[in-house]
């Protein structure tokens, strides 16, 4: 759902660039200087990890393949703000080096996938944790949160396209949600399985984040 250049009109991309710029600056400011010294290698390398993990494809029906987005995964392991910065870095590098997502649409993409897709998904995870109890049902919360995060991000992307007058909401919303409902299943499966296996191997990592 990386929006390319030319699909958002001037008012939409300027608005979302400003919103994401302010959000990112606030997230970076929220780190204290001494804490940051310990965090910089971690964030930079986790972002590179998310990028590398997105290279691992899984087959979807009909010869196509999907890959994992990793927003909720990063947030659950690193905390919501670090996760947001990580995902923003991934999107910036994808825009600059990989040309996946346009420069003018970068703000909108960071808002959709970086903010809504990870911090939004993470808050949903908190909500779903209230609904399910105990460690046995933990995977349910992971799966629901990551699936919903993809759907939310897709919804926002179609709203932005409609706001720019590119694609009518009546067309974009059903198609985007339809496609991403399937992609979201893959995301949910991988996020859940990966988190469960980390939980088995290094449970200490998952208790570091206070939430």
């Amino acid at each position, binding site marked *: *759902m*990386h929006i*390319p*250049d*030319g*699909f958002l*009109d*001037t008012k939409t*991309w300027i608005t979302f660039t400003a919103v994401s710029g302010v959000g*990112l600056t606030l997230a*970076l400011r929220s780190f204290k200087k*001494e804490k*940051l*010294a*310990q965090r*910089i*290698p*971690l*964030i*930079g*390398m*986790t*972002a*590179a*990890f998310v*990028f*590398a993990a997105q*290279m*691992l494809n899984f*087959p979807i029906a009909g010869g196509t393949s999907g890959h*994992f987005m990793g927003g909720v995964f990063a947030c659950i*392991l690193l905390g919501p703000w670090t996760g947001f*910065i990580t995902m923003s*870095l991934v999107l*910036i*590098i994808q*825009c*600059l*080096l*990989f*040309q*996946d997502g*346009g*420069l*003018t649409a970068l703000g909108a993409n960071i808002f959709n996938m970086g903010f809504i897709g990870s911090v939004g998904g993470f808050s949903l995870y908190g909500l779903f944790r209230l609904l399910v109890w105990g460690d046995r049902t933990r995977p349910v919360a992971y799966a629901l949160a990551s699936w919903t995060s993809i759907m939310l991000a897709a919804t926002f992307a179609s709203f932005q*396209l409609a706001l720019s007058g*590119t*694609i009518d909401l009546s*067309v974009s919303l059903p*198609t985007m949600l339809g496609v991403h409902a399937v992609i979201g299943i893959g995301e949910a*499966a991988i996020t*859940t*399985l*990966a*988190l469960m*296996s*980390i939980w088995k*191997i*290094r449970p200490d*990592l998952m208790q570091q984040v206070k939430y």
Partner: protein
Amino acid sequence: MHHSYLDKYARGTTAIHGLDARVKVLFSFAFIILIASLRASGFEFYLACLTLIAVCLIAARIPTVYLLTRSIVVIPFAGFAAISYMLTRTGGTTYWHSGPFAITSEGLIDASHLLARSWLAVSCMIILVNTTPFDQILKAFRTFRLHSILIMLLSFFYRYLYLLWDESERMQRARNLRYFGGKPEKQFAMLGHLVSSLFLRTYERTERVQMSMLSRGWDGSAAHVKLKPFTLQNVLNLVIGFSLLIILWWISTW
């Protein structure tokens, strides 16, 4: 490393490679913003932009095939969006219609403009990163007052990107060698393990890197990058670049 670099032509020696990174970054960003914000213009504008891209491509000695294969990334999303755009536009001659959808001449023209815009922007970005080493781009961002921590994080990212990418390819190859297909749920379980072990390897590497950085006296501040002074020649190049953009804008009003 078997995968091709994302910016494998970045360290060339042509005149375009020799231009100051700040000039190139400013010019390309302004070019992309111009393309993205101009709507419904005639095909002369796209032709002029294409000429500009082609001239840069030839001057920088980047193979055309490379540009074309790299710019395929826009297809999945842009293609989908252009098709839905085409189907919902009305006006002009109608070629086909069913229910709320129709293919009209207006729709075809607008959809092709949409595709042309995103393709031109992607090509411009490909040329930028293939004529400017990434550390130079980051230094240029630094002079534009981008958050210093963000720059540091981006350079870390770039430093470990290829390393982890290799790691993920090695793991994928190991999986393919030992694993002969299977049911979808089995495949997902395998992928989950791959992702988690990739993360753990990254995390453990981070701990080592961080320890060694701290033990060498790193205090979390960025090393100061010295940039070459912005000479008169750079100002002149920038002026030429922006006059080109003004000409493009003028063409779009035809």
